């Protein structure tokens, strides 16, 4: 890994910001995916990131995770980060519970009780002892989420962590993330395709396009938030508009377009 | 096979001559005696006696060329081959050498020592060791014999890893050159000095081949005679054919078999003694009846 600790680099904003990105660019084989992007995430802030498929969300997360250094620009992130990737990326040769606590320091990486507690949180404690290959799609995604949550980071990077979950499981997982965030005060960057999810959870919602942050909206609704409130509905429709679903009326979900 | 006369004149006959390290091939080509044969000579070259006899056994070679002991070993092991002519030298190429600062001065001093034998179990060097010990009044079990291939043993000897080495030819010459002491050699009948040209039973049963072998032996005799009178030309031929250095080539010429002799009862008796000695130290088992393992009808002088 080519990221080095550098206390000097925590400049003027360091006391309040968790992530500082200045002029970040990333090019794949001549295709610029991230183009001179600036972004600051405050300490303890919950930021949601929306954007079309292929617009560079995962790329941005990988850079913040320190996994991609073929970049230009300046990126400052907390040392203690944790991520749930878009695909579960479980180690197939470790039992589910070992996957959850893998990488925890010291004896904790053998702490089955700890792993089981988090697996219970995502509703699959009874699968703690099996091989990952036997998990269903949603189960694997939940293990991956548990693995990200167990390590109490300062910055939590979540790449569509609820995509493969059914309605009930998803609600529970969202609530779990919300609670952990409030309890530990970490910063969260959540990539999602669900506008309502973004608005329910985040302090700020960003829309990525053309390699940068094209739109940004601060959600200063009080928590817990109600889907039906007029502010919520108008925010949703604004975001959907930015995402290209222009003809969705305030009371419609994007799907309605199918019937138009 | 057909009638002898018809076969011998038939151009169809191909004689596959077994050879070790191009020795015969070099000699016969250099002396030019193979010109005008009525049969075709094909060479089958091998690294040592064992693979050569394997080829004879497999029917891939008609004749063999080896010292007495390897031939006996092959016959003892059931290889269908008969000696058809004997080769002779003075036995000086075989010897036992020790490190230059060794406390071993004579054969009797070998008692209780490790002695390395090359090339392998049942080689002439081992016979020399057995015979020399016997003459010195020792039992074969008084020394501890170790077997090493000559290249390996040479490396070990040079590095001082072995004290006494029963060896032969260029290997012996090389270490003696560097100061090693020879405590005994094969002269004076300590080794028989005999080698054999052998013929596969199957070849002998084929009249055409048998005639070809007979003719070949005559030419080989001439070639050996030539080598005695043209030592320098022969040495140069060896250098050219094998890449050996001049000194080595000269040594080969000097120590090589100097003449082809018929397998007379005297030869048979000498070689039988060798066989009996080796049988006595359980190196040749079962023993070979030499007189039964030769065919004296092909070569006489």
């Amino acid at each position: 890994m080519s990221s080095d600790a550098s206390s000097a680099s925590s400049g003027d904003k360091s006391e309040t910001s968790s992530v500082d990105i200045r002029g970040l660019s990333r090019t794949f084989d001549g295709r610029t995916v991230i183009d001179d992007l600036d972004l600051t995430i405050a300490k303890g802030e919950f930021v949601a990131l929306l954007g079309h498929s292929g617009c560079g969300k995962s790329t941005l997360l990988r850079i913040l995770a320190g996994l991609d250094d073929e970049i230009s620009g300046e990126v400052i992130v907390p040392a203690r980060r944790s991520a749930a990737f878009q695909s579960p990326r479980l180690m197939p040769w470790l039992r589910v519970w070992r996957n959850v606590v893998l990488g925890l320091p010291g004896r904790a990486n053998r702490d089955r009780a700890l792993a089981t507690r988090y697996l219970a949180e995502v509703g699959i404690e009874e699968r703690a002892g099996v091989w990952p290959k036997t998990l269903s799609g949603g189960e694997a995604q939940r293990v991956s989420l548990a693995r990200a949550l167990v390590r109490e980071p300062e910055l939590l990077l979540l790449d569509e962590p609820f995509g493969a979950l059914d309605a009930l499981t998803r609600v529970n997982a969202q609530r779990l993330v919300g609670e952990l965030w409030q309890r530990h005060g970490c910063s969260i960057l959540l990539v999602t395709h669900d506008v309502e999810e973004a608005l329910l959870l985040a302090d700020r919602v960003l829309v990525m396009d053309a390699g940068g942050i094209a739109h940004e909206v601060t959600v200063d609704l009080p928590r817990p938030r109600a889907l039906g409130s007029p502010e919520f509905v108008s925010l949703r429709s604004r975001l959907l508009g930015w995402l290209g679903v222009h003809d969705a009326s305030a009371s419609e979900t994007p799907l309605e377009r199918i019937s138009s | 096979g057909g009638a002898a006369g018809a076969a011998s004149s038939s151009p169809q006959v191909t004689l596959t001559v077994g050879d070790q390290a191009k020795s015969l091939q070099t000699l016969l080509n250099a002396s030019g005696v193979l010109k005008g044969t009525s049969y075709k000579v094909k060479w089958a070259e091998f690294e040592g006696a064992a693979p050569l006899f394997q080829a004879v056994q497999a029917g891939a070679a008609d004749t063999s060329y080896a010292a007495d002991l390897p031939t006996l070993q092959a016959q003892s092991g059931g290889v269908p081959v008969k000696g058809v002519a004997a080769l002779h030298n003075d036995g000086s190429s075989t010897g036992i050498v020790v490190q230059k600062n060794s406390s071993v001065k004579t054969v009797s001093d070998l008692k209780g020592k490790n002695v390395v034998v090359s090339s392998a179990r049942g080689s002439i060097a081992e016979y020399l060791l057995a015979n020399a010990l016997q003459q010195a009044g020792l039992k074969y079990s008084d020394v501890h014999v170790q077997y090493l291939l000559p290249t390996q043993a040479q490396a070990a000897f040079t590095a001082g890893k072995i004290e006494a080495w029963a060896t032969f030819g260029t290997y012996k010459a090389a270490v003696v050159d560097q100061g090693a002491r020879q405590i005994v050699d094969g002269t004076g009948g300590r080794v028989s000095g005999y080698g054999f040209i052998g013929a596969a039973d199957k070849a002998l049963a084929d009249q055409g081949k048998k005639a070809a072998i007979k003719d070949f032996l005559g030419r080989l005799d001439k070639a050996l005679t030539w080598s005695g009178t043209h030592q320098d030309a022969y040495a140069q031929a060896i250098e050219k054919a094998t890449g050996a250095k001049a000194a080595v080539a000269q040594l080969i010429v000097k120590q090589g078999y100097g003449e082809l002799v018929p397998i007379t009862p005297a030869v048979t008796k000498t070689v039988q003694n060798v066989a009996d000695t080796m049988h006595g130290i359980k190196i040749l088992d079962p023993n070979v009846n030499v007189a039964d393992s030769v065919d004296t009808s092909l070569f006489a002088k």
Partner: protein
Amino acid sequence: MSVKEYAAPGAVPPKPTAQAAAPPDTRLTIRPARRARRIPRLPRAVRRAIGPVGLLVAWYLGSVTGVLPENVLASPVDVVRQAIELTSSGELPRAIAASGRRAATGFVIGAAIALALSLTAGLFRLGEDVVDASMGMFRAIPWVGLIPLFIVWFGIDETPKIALVALGVTYPLYFNIYGGIRSADSQLVEAARMLGLGRIALIRYVILPSALPGALVGLRYALSTAWLALVFGEQINADAGIGYLMSNAEQYFRTDVIVLCLAVYAILGLLCDFVVRLLSKRLLSWRASFDGDGA
């Protein structure tokens, strides 16, 4: 980067000529797995014995009919007789024990070297450049040519024999472990880094497990190489061992003993294979991979 407007619906080709015209109404029944319904199959061990036993039979028939001449490949009957004789005289068990000791020691040393080298080459680019190129070169050098050097360095006792085994074992293990490391899924390596695994933990929990399937292939090859190296190793001043037994028999044209040694090698090979199979089954139970058709 802007999202393109999708092609107009009409652009969907009305009849892509792609699909073969299977009769439109064909339906299939998904049948429950055969094993549940048919006569139980031959047990695995029996099926795996088909090959070796078949070869044995072929050998026997070859000997009887003379296709395999007696003086080149002794008949199974002779070989069995010889086996009984050498076993009761204790020579064969002693040879196997001596060779086994050498093979085991050499294997352990060679495996340790291979692991160290392949980790160096697999984990560091510089290590790769230096080690991997040298290994490719070394491997190509015939070690029979190096035996004199071995003797100079290691003498003529046990050490050069063990060193030869170690040398023979190192290459297949090195190549396969190195190849295995380099085929580790980069996504998993990334995940592990994100989880904060240090270098040691990364090796232990990600790199080595990834390399395991390859390493087991190498192990299979290396185990038989360990025995084979002794065919040459035991020509160096040995007085026991299967290699010694065999080269000795070669010297004396004892085809029955030679073939007995070959048979012992074959059985040892089967045993080693069996061990590797067991090991694979245990160590790779996490794997969801192709395991051949039911046929």
